[in-house]
């Protein structure tokens, strides 16, 4: 057999197929990847260092920029960690509002995923549809929080503004619309034989290694392990809501896509339930003057389920008006480095971007 020459292929940082600003250095033999090394740091902004310079509430402006496609889980996780340190109660209404915001954030992220997953396979029509429809969710956010992408809406002790009844109606209308549209997306994506051929059996995460490698979220559910922070360690009012955590077998791109497809449905259902069950009352347990607000000494760890998997914040206070240390661990931290490096060898070059989208690799979350 003729041994083909090994070529080094730099996928990124400037490459349309890469999911953000990062680089995967590939050793390639023909069309097959032999070795993959992830290089990150192109987006390193020293968030954790900067948060140490800000006071407790100023940190929120930085936090939501941790991972751009999905800023809200970051805010919620940090807020929950601070609440734990400060022993601050959150009114029940605020908890419901938080759940709605979280699920809306999930939905808009799912729509980006639809676009990325289809776009990396060359199905541009779906990407255009779903990113276009995503604007309807961003409109809802805009009305509620004032921001399209970054909201800074969830604060320790509740949320910043109350929701109105008209907003709730709009949410319900949007949910009806999205439910209809999702059928279109699914028809274009899941019913397509070419997509099935591309997705099945590609980018397999082995079941026995999944937890060891730090796989979380949909990729972990894609290997058949039912793991979701919302049921493992219920936060806010998720234990009062009725939803299912879908799983699929196989661990390939197809399984992960199936999981996400079903989660999209569940998110819509959760939002409907939360709007229905939301009680009247206070929405904000006001914190004192943010310039002088001192959080008691201690350490807290909070984690939240985002679209890509669990997000955890380790917050340390030394009893001053600034955080002493904040460490964030996003799902992409392991997906983008360890998992990607482990599963890429043996894959076709054509599938790399496909796999990265399926794992939900989000570079700003890795290097922060």
């Amino acid at each position: 057999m003729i041994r083909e020459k090994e070529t080094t292929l730099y996928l990124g940082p400037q490459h349309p197929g890469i999911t953000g600003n990062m680089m995967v250095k590939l050793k390639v033999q023909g069309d097959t990847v032999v070795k993959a090394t992830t290089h990150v740091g192109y987006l390193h902004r020293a968030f954790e260092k900067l948060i140490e310079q800000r006071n407790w509430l100023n940190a929120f402006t930085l936090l939501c920029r941790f991972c751009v496609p999905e800023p809200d889980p970051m805010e919620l996780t940090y807020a929950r960690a601070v609440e734990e340190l400060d022993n601050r109660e959150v009114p029940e209404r605020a908890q419901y509002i938080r759940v709605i915001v979280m699920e809306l954030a999930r939905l808009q992220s799912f729509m980006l995923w639809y676009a990325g997953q289809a776009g990396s396979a060359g199905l541009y029509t779906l990407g255009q549809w779903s990113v276009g429809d995503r604007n309807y969710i961003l409109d809802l956010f805009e009305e509620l929080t004032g921001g399209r992408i970054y909201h800074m809406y969830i604060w320790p002790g509740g949320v910043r503004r109350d929701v109105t009844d008209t907003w709730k109606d709009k949410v319900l209308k949007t949910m009806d619309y999205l439910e209809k549209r999702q059928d279109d997306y699914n028809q274009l994506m899941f019913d397509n034989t070419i997509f099935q051929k591309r997705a099945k059996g590609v980018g397999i995460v082995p079941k026995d290694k999944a937890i060891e490698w730090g796989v979380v979220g949909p990729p972990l559910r894609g290997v058949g392990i039912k793991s979701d922070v919302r049921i493992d360690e219920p936060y806010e009012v998720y234990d009062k809501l009725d939803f299912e955590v879908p799983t699929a077998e196989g661990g390939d791109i197809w399984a992960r896509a199936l999981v996400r497809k079903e989660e999209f449905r569940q998110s819509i259902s959760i939002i409907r339930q939360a709007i229905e069950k939301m009680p009247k009352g206070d929405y904000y347990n006001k914190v004192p003057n943010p310039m002088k607000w001192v959080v008691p000494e201690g350490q807290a760890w909070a984690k939240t389920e985002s679209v890509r998997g669990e997000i955890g914040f380790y917050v340390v206070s030394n009893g001053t008006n600034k955080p002493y240390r904040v460490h964030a661990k996003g799902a992409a931290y392991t997906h983008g480095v360890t998992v990607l490096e482990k599963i890429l060898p043996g894959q076709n070059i054509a599938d790399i971007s496909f796999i990265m989208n399926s794992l939900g690799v989000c570079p700003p979350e890795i290097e922060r």
Partner: protein
Amino acid sequence: MEDLGLKIFGAILTTILGFTVGMTYGGIVRKLTARVQNRYGPPFYQNFLDLLKLQVKKTNIAHGFMGHMAPVWIIIAAVTVLLFIPILNGNLWFPNMSFHGDLIFLLYMMVFGSLGMALGAGQSGNPNSAIGVSRGLSQMVGFEIPFVLSLVALMIQYETTSVQELTQIQHETGVWNAISNPFAFLAALFASLGMFRYSPFDIVGAPAELASGPVSEFGGKYLGTMMSGGAIFAFIKLTLYVHLFLGGAGNPDNTGIIATLLGLGVLLIKTFTLYMVPVFYGWINPRYRTEQAIQYFWRWPTALGIIGVIWAVYS
């Protein structure tokens, strides 16, 4: 000498027509694609603006001799092939350099452009280009087989290797080859999906995988020239298909101005309809991997091509 003058004039006219139609079709496809994607879309003449911009862009890169030659090679190949394609059947204004055996000649010449691209891209040194070229050649191996089979079927059926004659036969009998040998036509139609490089066969310049594939290192005038070449090639393929399978266009008995315009209208309608086949297919399909694309062509299209040949032999 008069004849030669007319021929040169016809050649220029043909080139202008091919270029304009090819570019406009591209623009219309962009617009239609945008409409399908819920967008307003660029104006239909956007491709001309792009081309003009590329041509006035400064270019100060050198990738060796073949890097300079590749676009020239492509456009030469495109114009040359165009001159051997009958635009309107037997029309004096669009004389083609038809000769016996030009179908086989065309088969070779149509690869010529891709070859130029391959050599140029190879010299640019970008690995994306190299991979793109190897993919393009593999894909060509895929779709050439059903395409050649369908042509062979036609050649056997009418015992000629001249495009002109094939058109003339269809004109005389009034039966399109698409009807007299449907299997060959279907095989050729499937091959055309690969030829036009829309999804699912856009594996050559797949953006998410290879940046822009073979043309990664070409910008400005080089890219503009390649774009014009590509537009002419699109027109060539469409016209060839129309003349081989869909009865051609134009009436050799009447070459007056009105009849010529009418013939051009028929040609445009037929080519545009044919062009919509790969475009429609592309809107709803993601991209194949290289080996899957080859498998695709080597199954049904090839089988249809073989059936077409058998049909031609025994009919």
